[in-house]
């Protein structure tokens, strides 16, 4: 067996890679390591003291309300992801296959515009629209419906999540579908595929990677969002970010909040890795 050639350290390449390595170490690896260490600290007289105790883990993981929040957060983030993907798909499809290049560029620009304003401000504006005396109920009253309670419900939370994620999901889906080789779509249609079957058997498989990445982004953003469940959901059945806040408010239990945060990160890692594995999995027989 021939010996593997020794790889020479390429200082030039390393120099160019260094900023991202440093960035990751300083802003991700470092804080995560500190957070993990902090989860073993103790709080005495409202001050954190260094220790290596498992009491925070046992306290948090043995509480029923932690698991209630945990499963509720996963559930509502999953619902948000499904809704965003379904709502975004027709728009992205139209932009990718029906719109001209110029229209698509303008649409993407318009989808970026909401990010110019604070998410918190956008969330607060929903108060005016969703409240019982708000715009939606006022319109519904003209046809003899309502008033419906939309604020301080899971529906309110979902509206907030859509505010946060929908533009991004539309952009990701559009970019993915716009890159599909159009001749394949035309070939499917020429061979007698119905429009629905073309979407199902040609477009979706070809844009699988982008669609899964859009879904992962949506899930991650919803899972970690504090603003929508707090302000539009009224903290009714708190999500994990709200639980973090509650934990730090009471007795300044930052170590216990760290436990919640680590559980959140672990969950997101698991979901993101599974999603990415699915996205890049090659079909049987594919090279």
């Amino acid at each position, binding site marked *: 067996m021939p010996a593997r050639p020794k790889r020479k350290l390429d200082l030039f390449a390393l120099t160019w890679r260094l900023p991202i390595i440093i960035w990751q170490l300083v802003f991700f690896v470092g804080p995560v390591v500190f957070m993990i260490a902090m989860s073993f600290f103790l709080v005495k007289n*409202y001050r954190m003291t260094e220790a290596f105790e498992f009491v925070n883990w046992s306290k948090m993981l043995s509480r029923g309300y932690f698991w209630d929040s945990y499963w509720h957060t996963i559930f509502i983030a999953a619902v948000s992801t499904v809704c965003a993907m379904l709502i975004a798909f027709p728009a992205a499809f139209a932009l990718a296959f029906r719109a001209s290049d110029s229209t698509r560029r303008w649409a993407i620009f318009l989808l970026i515009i909401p990010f110019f304003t604070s998410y918190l401000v956008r969330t607060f504006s929903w108060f005016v629209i969703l409240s019982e005396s708000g715009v939606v109920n006022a319109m519904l009253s003209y046809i003899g419906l309502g008033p419906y309670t939309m604020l301080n419900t899971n529906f309110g939370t979902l509206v907030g999540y859509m505010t946060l994620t929908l533009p991004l999901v539309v952009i990701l889906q559009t970019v993915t579908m716009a890159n599909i080789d159009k001749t394949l779509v035309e070939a499917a249609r020429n061979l007698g595929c119905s429009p629905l079957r073309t979407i199902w058997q040609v477009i979706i498989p070809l844009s699988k990677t982008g669609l899964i990445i859009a879904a992962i982004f949506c899930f991650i953003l919803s899972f970690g969002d504090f603003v929508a469940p707090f302000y539009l959901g009224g903290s009714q059945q708190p999500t994990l970010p709200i639980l973090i806040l509650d934990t730090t408010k*009471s007795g300044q239990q930052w170590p216990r909040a760290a436990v919640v945060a680590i559980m959140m990160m672990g969950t997101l890692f698991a979901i993101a890795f599974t999603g990415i594995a699915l996205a890049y999995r090659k079909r049987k027989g594919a090279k």
Partner: protein
Amino acid sequence: MTKSKNTSILSAPSRRGLLKIGGAAVLTTPFVSRAWAQTTEINMLAWYGHGEPDVVAEFEAANNVKFVPKYYAGGDNMLALIAQSPPGTYDIILSDAEFVQQLNLAGYIEPLEAADYPFDDMLHDDFKQFPGHWADGELYSMMVRGGHLGVSYNKNSVTEEEAQSYSCFWKPELEGKVGHFDWHLPNLGMMSLYNGNGAGLWDLDDAKWDAVQETTMSLRKQVGGYFDYGGTFNGLKNGEMQAMCGIGDWITGVLEKDGAPVASTIPKEGGIQFTESYSIGIGSEKADIAKKFIQYMLSPVGQVKSAQMAAYPGFCVTKGGRAALIEADPAEAKRSHQMEGMANDPIALINQGRIHYRDIPQQQDLEDWNDFWSEYKNS
């Protein structure tokens, strides 16, 4: 008669004139900046609103000081901020009365000289010997204002008679319309009062604590949300919440002044008093001016400013303050019942034994109460 010559530099600028102005500006700049530098910065730790211009601007101007407020929400948060800062960081600390004892035990505050403060002018004897404010005969904190917590409601859906009992929160028509201020202490305190624990509302044995939890859980189906200050405010203002548990006039008062059909009342089971007190931070190098500010807040002028505070109103604790409020702002005095003979006069309510000072649980840890609160929110 000769025409008077216009000598103003500004109206007819000449090179010499401009040089004069420029020279004067250059020469006086060090004095101006020195005058600015002399403005003493006072680091204040307080609930939101206490360091805002409507309260402190006059004192700042008169004493050439500038308040640098750091705001907190909740006693735990306050204690943590102090614990994580070196001594001397905060010159003046506004604390809820029930946390003064902990501030003192941890050595975060300086003793005060009782003779410096108007104890003879206090509206109620309780205010002179407020629990936790004195230790071993030494004064550590000075009460400056308070407020009462009870039933807060929208007058369009809860009548004044119904609001006379916490039972109105269980009114079927209010399903999904009862909000909570998201802090376990006042809410569970009210549930304890509703259970008939009266003056022993914080001193609950296991059976009474279980009963309080059961009563609270029975309210869950009525609850429409758990809110911070802004959310509570919004919920009542836009009508999403028709009744609120855990608050009082400190929120409805602001809305009421704005014309919203809301009010707060002390029900027959009793109400809870929040009390705010000033202390001087340990190691402060500006203790003298901090003392002067506490004296100012207890003076009639300061008491009026406190009662009219834009962020949230509180009642006067001195006789001079109340008299000044009645004279300066009779409408506010009347609205907040700070007139003798009025049914809900805060002092009369205390005398009738209907008000209980907010405290921390005596037989459980705060953590137990908080754990239950999280459980309740998740149920």
